């Protein structure tokens, strides 16, 4: 699954959950197994697995199997749709603030 094929709704939704966002952030630092991940959270292993499934579903996390173990890591490239959304506003606000300046100039003191 390439990041291009993902809709940003899924990425937003996946990261809207704080626990899931925390899981994603931890996996940005290192590749981990489910039990590594469970150690850092007051959340059950099945719950962590569910969060991982949701993150994998939108391409934010990938899985590597080695023997009996599965290792997970973050795929920051999948954040691209989110970054595009933010970029839209990075262009939007400066444009609108220029208009705000014009409004201020036209106002009575």
């Amino acid at each position, binding site marked *: 699954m390439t990041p291009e094929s993902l809709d940003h709704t899924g990425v937003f939704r996946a990261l809207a959950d704080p626990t899931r966002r925390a899981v994603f952030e931890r996996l940005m630092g290192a590749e981990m197994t489910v039990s590594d991940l469970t150690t850092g959270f*007051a959340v059950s292993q099945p719950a962590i697995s569910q969060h991982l499934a949701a993150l994998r579903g939108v391409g934010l996390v990938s899985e590597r199997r080695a023997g009996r173990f599965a290792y997970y890591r973050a795929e920051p490239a999948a954040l691209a749709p989110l970054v595009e959304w933010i970029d839209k506003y990075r262009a939007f*606000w400066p444009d609108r603030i220029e208009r705000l300046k014009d409004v201020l100039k036209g106002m009575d003191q």
Partner: protein
Amino acid sequence: MSDTAETAQDIVLDYELDAAPEKVWRALSQPHLVAAWLGPNDIAPEQGRRFVVEPAPNKAVDCEILEADPERRLSYRWREADDQGALVDSTVTFEVTPTPLGGSHLRLVHSGFKAVGAGSMLGAVNDNTLMQRSLQWAA
């Protein structure tokens, strides 16, 4: 990669304006003035007040005032439908501070992008509440 997904999402813009905070506040909070730079709207700077603004034709943004501290700070929820019709919530905050020469410093912060799609457990609750609920459900 040291940036977290959280901080990477915030937009922070700073401006020096040639107008006093009182004037800037009016331009940020009076509908006929806001209309001239942001779009048609029915804003009123009262906490809890819901309003709609249309930055572009047929692109209505559903807003709610989170904080209105006259001449200092105006913050509202910015809820927009994306291309697929899912709702994306974020927060827009304007901070106004006076400058020595009678102008204003304006800081605009657009932060906290998150989705609130249909069937989502997310509503108008803050992150802490959500975290607690997620943890309860997971336990």
